[in-house]
């Protein structure tokens, strides 16, 4: 797929690792929105990416916020833009640490108040910026410096938490499915209120993978059921956007990642059970709360290929 406005947001020659999932997230958002964007970014790789003041690799205005504050700083910015009749896509752009953990209360507050911002969580399932410590987004059996024998607990279900805030739009996005990614960002641009975009973001050093593998692994995450692609409108309309009738064996996703290298057979089974459980739950939710009027309205303008 040709990207029309590649690097609208993040210039090349930034300090991200080669193959960084987050760079691609920026590029795909830029392709969907152009550079009519302002961002609030907390402590995470994305605020180190632009290099040091006064230089910046960001082509759009960015406020670095304190770790737990990106969503509410973005909400403050957006409110003043709206009072001044400025139509700008104001994004809080945070990693899993700033979303699942330290920023959770702030995020929940903004979602509950239905602040008119786009919240992008790029989840690399680890505190990457500080060198691979566990987060509540780290999946079971992954090795980090603070789970040296593999994580024992399961990953927090951030989507369900956000969906149950009754926000107008929540979606999962994959850098391995760029058309779907751009479609969802464009829908998010149209929706009023709090929009939660959740992206799995492969991390080269901390997943211990080759740089060339990030997009492939993101794609495999979808195909194996690890990261199902779906969108939810107003808590009540679940729409699975990537129908996967037959799941690819999970080992194809796990094996290239050395963070899982020490996992025992039993813990891999546990990983599989959790993935299947999650996937089945999402399918059941989609059966119970199927796409309705709102989904149809957006499908007309933004069809799924």
């Amino acid at each position, binding site marked *: 797929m040709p990207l029309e406005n590649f690097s609208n947001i993040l210039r090349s020659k930034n300090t991200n690792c080669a193959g960084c999932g987050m760079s691609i997230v920026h590029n795909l958002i830029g392709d969907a929105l152009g550079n009519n964007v302002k961002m609030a970014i907390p402590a995470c790789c994305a605020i*180190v990416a632009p*290099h040091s003041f006064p230089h910046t690799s960001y082509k759009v205005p*960015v406020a670095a*916020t304190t770790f737990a504050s990106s969503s509410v700083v973005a*909400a*403050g910015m957006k409110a003043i833009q709206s009072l001044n009749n400025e139509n700008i896509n104001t994004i809080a752009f945070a990693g899993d640490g700033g979303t699942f953990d330290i920023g959770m209360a702030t995020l929940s507050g903004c979602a509950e108040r239905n602040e008119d911002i786009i919240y992008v969580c790029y989840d690399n399932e680890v505190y990457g910026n500080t060198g691979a410590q566990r987060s509540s987004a780290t999946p079971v059996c992954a090795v980090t410096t603070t789970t040296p024998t593999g994580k024992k607990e399961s990953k927090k279900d951030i989507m369900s938490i956000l969906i149950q805030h009754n926000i107008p739009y929540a979606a999962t996005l994959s850098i391995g499915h760029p058309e779907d990614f751009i479609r969802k960002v464009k829908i998010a641009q149209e929706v009023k209120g709090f929009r939660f975009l959740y992206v799995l973001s492969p991390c080269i050093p901390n997943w211990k993978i080759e740089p060339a593998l990030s997009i492939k692994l993101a794609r495999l995450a979808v195909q194996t059921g690890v990261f199902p692609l779906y969108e939810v409108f107003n808590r009540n309309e679940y729409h699975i956007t990537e129908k996967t009738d037959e799941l690819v064996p999970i080992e194809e996703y796990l094996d290239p990642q050395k963070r899982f290298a020490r996992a025992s057979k039993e813990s891999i089974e546990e990983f599989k059970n959790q993935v299947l459980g999650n996937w089945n739950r999402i399918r059941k939710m989609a059966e119970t709360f199927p796409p309705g009027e709102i989904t149809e309205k957006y499908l007309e303008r933004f069809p799924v290929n």
Partner: protein
Amino acid sequence: MIKELCTANYAGGYTFTVCGNANRKGRGCGSGIYPITPQTEVVETVVQLLEQGKVEKGRVFAVESEHSAMAACIGVSLEGARSFTATSSNGALYMAENIVNASLFRLPIVMQIVNRTLGPEWNIWAEQGESLLFRDWGWIQIYCEDNQELVDHILMGFYISENHKVMLPTMLCVDAFILSHTMMPVLLPTQEEADEYLPLLDLPHRLRNDDPVTIGGLSYPRVTFAHRHDMKVAMESVFDVYSEAQDKFEKMFNRRPEDPVTGYMHEDADILLVTSSTITSTARNTINEMREKGVKIGLIKIKMYRPFPTDLFIKLTENAEKIGVIDRNTSLGAPGNVEGIFCQDILYALYKNGIKDKLVQSYLLGIGGLDVTPELIREVADDLTKRKKSESSIWKGM
């Protein structure tokens, strides 16, 4: 101005609102709010006046924590809108990270702090601990003696903070309950007066898409060093801008807000008491009584604590032999067990100016909000009168 009988909390909330609305022809205003005793009425007043339609171009964020309240103010301010909030005690500590963020970003936010003892143990009464924790990070600090002083300095606070030479936030401190919940006659600015007094906010570094910057990202030591020095220069410029703010105030309202530090019966006094906040009013009465008995005593009131008005303080105290500093705060483990924070600064200001012949004694009164009575002040004055040399802080009234 219109005269009303009101608490410092109502007066603060009202004045914030008219000052915010005064920026309606600019980029508007916004406030992140979160309740905490004894400040709550300030933010309730702000949101109630907003919902009554008193603010044409503004937004209040009733958020889930003090940390987010200041973060909302930061977002608002980064977009070039006028911003304000209020907090107290542990609320300020929970907000701490973003309080420092606001000044490091050079955002002219104005905040009312209702000084309340830090806990646990939970104690809702007056002490200056929370605001003094933030004295070192580029916030202008004003300690108000009464409700009127709060109102006047909210107006002046926006005027000074938003001046391009300054661009630092202002903290206005009032004592818990003694002012926050006490009604007194106050002259409140009308909307037209606030409009006339305050120029529209023009934030030079507001986030704009036509000139995209990354504010607050990675910075190397040499750059941070320079930024901190810029803040020092900005702090030093506060005194000039303060006089400007006084001049404009006097011209408009026919009365002049006091200087950052002021003297009362100080010129011929042998001994001076130094106070801040509401203890000043009590001390002034005591001094009147003692003067009637022929004691040559005077009073120095420190209103602005950061930046510290050193030159003015030295000038006002030049004739005195002894200085007794009354502090309602503690710095535990301080050098020489002089735990009073204002006293530490005063000792340094004198030393820095080569003044070594004055006796300076520190007194700690009213810790945990204990009443500072006229009797206690009289005891302090008597002690100072008899005193031949200074010692560690004297904790009085326990």
